[in-house]
């Protein structure tokens, strides 16, 4: 049995009851309203159910808007019943007292009813001694919390004062006024007593959360070092005679540590810089060379940008395979109207006119690919002077952002 989030007018009590009992919601509402006449029994019942019934779990649908206009007929019926009761019974005192008790009940219900049970459970472990308090501080929506607390407090106070006023022997207005002042002073006293506790508990909660976050980070770091660094070091010890392999291992480990320590992770399928860095890393691992990667700016990846990255990767592979050097430079820049990628090595170099037409690496994968996607590629090379591949891809202004900060 629970209160639904949709199909409700005030808090969903009537709808919940109706669903549980299998009767039309209208009948429940009318019954509650009619019971209103009998010393406000309807209101009492409503408040009690409101405080006790849990709310239905939140689902993804947008809840139906509450239509306060739908309350009008029930209000009218309730007024009628009350008037009728006032006509039939002369005992006004008892009726008023019933109303006041109902107001108290509603106030208490408002304070208590809605603190999310799951959240209360999660918090109450920390503060088993003061679960009522935990229920209140666990509210995330502070404004609704304050509103509800103040509103509920006023309702309770008014109810108590009303009861006192009705039964007070002097029956004078000034006594009621004094009662109000005393009630206010009493509330103030409670506030003074509770405030330091509230403050201290907030501090404890905050400290504990920070500690937990730190602990988690430490555990993550330890796991990473264990999984990667220690294993790589073990591999290096076992392969210490194979210099190429040691270099490859050390390079890969250095890169992954650097990424982990300094770089926010971005998806290579979404960001230009991340895609280029991944391509460079693959070439580094495959061909055991160092790619000195510098990327200025960043942008969103799309099909054309991916083609540019692929062409850049091909240029890196060519340099790794044919230049005979240990280091290749990869520089990319995102400008307002153009993306450019430069791959340079200081290796053997070659005579571009001497490359056979059947070789697809340069013509198909680099020049042809860039042309198909509306870009251009230039290759500058001379035997003995190294090679530079320049890739340019014009882009529209909207798809480019100026700096790396757009990653976040």
């Amino acid at each position, binding site marked *: 049995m629970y209160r639904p989030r949709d199909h409700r007018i005030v808090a969903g009590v009537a709808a919940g009851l109706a669903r549980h009992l299998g009767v039309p919601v209208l009948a429940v509402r009318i019954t509650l309203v009619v019971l209103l006449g009998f010393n406000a029994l309807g209101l009492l019942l409503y408040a009690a159910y409101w405080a006790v019934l849990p709310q239905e779990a939140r689902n993804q649908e947008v809840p139906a808007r509450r239509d306060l206009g739908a309350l009008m007929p029930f209000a009218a019926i309730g007024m009628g019943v009350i008037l009728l009761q006032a006509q039939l019974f002369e005992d006004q005192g008892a009726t008023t007292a019933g109303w006041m008790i109902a107001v108290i009940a509603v106030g208490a219900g408002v304070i208590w009813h809605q603190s999310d049970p799951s959240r209360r459970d999660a918090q109450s472990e920390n503060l088993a001694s003061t679960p009522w308090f935990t229920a209140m501080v666990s509210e995330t929506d502070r404004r609704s919390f304050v509103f509800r607390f103040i509103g509920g407090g006023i309702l309770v106070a008014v109810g108590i004062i009303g009861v006192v006023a009705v039964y007070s022997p002097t029956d004078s207005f000034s006594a009621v006024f004094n009662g109000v002042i005393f009630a206010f002073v009493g509330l103030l006293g409670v506030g003074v007593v509770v405030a330091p506790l509230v403050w201290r508990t907030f501090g404890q909660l905050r400290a504990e959360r920070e500690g937990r976050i730190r602990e988690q980070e430490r555990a993550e770091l330890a796991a990473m070092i264990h999984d990667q660094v220690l294993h790589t070091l073990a591999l290096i010890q076992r392969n210490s005679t194979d210099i190429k392999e040691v270099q490859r291992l050390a390079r890969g480990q*250095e890169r992954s540590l*650097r990424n982990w*320590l*300094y770089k926010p992770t971005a998806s290579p399928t979404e960001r230009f810089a991340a895609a280029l860095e991944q391509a460079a890393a693959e070439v580094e691992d495959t061909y055991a060379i160092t790619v*000195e990667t*510098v*990327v*200025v*700016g960043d942008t969103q990846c799309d099909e054309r940008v991916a083609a540019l990255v692929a062409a850049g990767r091909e240029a890196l592979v060519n340099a790794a395979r044919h230049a005979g050097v240990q280091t*290749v*430079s990869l*520089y990319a*820049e995102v400008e307002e109207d153009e993306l450019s990628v*430069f791959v*340079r090595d*200081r290796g053997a170099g070659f005579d571009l006119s001497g490359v056979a037409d059947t070789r697809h690496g340069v013509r198909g994968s680099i020049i042809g690919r860039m042309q198909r996607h509306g870009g251009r590629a230039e290759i500058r090379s001379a035997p003995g002077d190294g090679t*530079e591949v320049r890739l340019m891809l014009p882009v529209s202004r909207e798809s480019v952002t*100026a*700096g*790396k*900060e757009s990653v*976040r």
Partner: protein
Amino acid sequence: MSEPVTEPEARRLNVFLVDDHAMFRAGVRAELGVHVDVVGEASTVSEAISRIAAVQPDVVLLDVHMPDGGGRAVLESVRRSHPQVKFLALSVSDAAEDVIGLIRAGARGYVTKTISPDELAAAVRRVADGDAVFSPRLAGFVLDAFASRPDVPVADPELDQLTNREREVLRLLARGYAYKEIAKELFISIKTVETHVSNVLRKLQMSNRYELSRWAADRRLV
């Protein structure tokens, strides 16, 4: 920047090492000993400050991350009392905030610890001669930091912007060109390339705080 210095040196340079890893200091000392005189070492910030003041070396090779304050504290303290001592940052970190932070504090260059001994010797020589040492990566960071943002009001536009020529030089540096090749590519002399690079370094060190703090904030560095 990768050209080893080959001409006979008039005077061997005095170099001071600051690094909290003794192993690394020993390695650098062995590698550099061929080219320069390593006149002292320090492993902590306070030790470095007092020893550098006593020895007054030409160039200090400075680690960025140390337990008690880091290279930046050494740099700021020594520069106040001995402005003629030049600093070359030598760090395992190539994170933008470390690089830019040290350059802003007054280091004449920044190289990572994976640099080859020859290149390191050349970098020390260049710093001692008053030039700036720009790795491709540093050039990339600077280009990033000075990326044109037309909407940002600039206090001193003269100082706070790179000229087109400086930008071109930085781009070529980032693309892996040596100074000699840049000079050939842009039809200017090597001396002019060096001047441009030194100007960029000066701008980086002196450009207004607003712009660079914004840059740092964008990258969640502050």
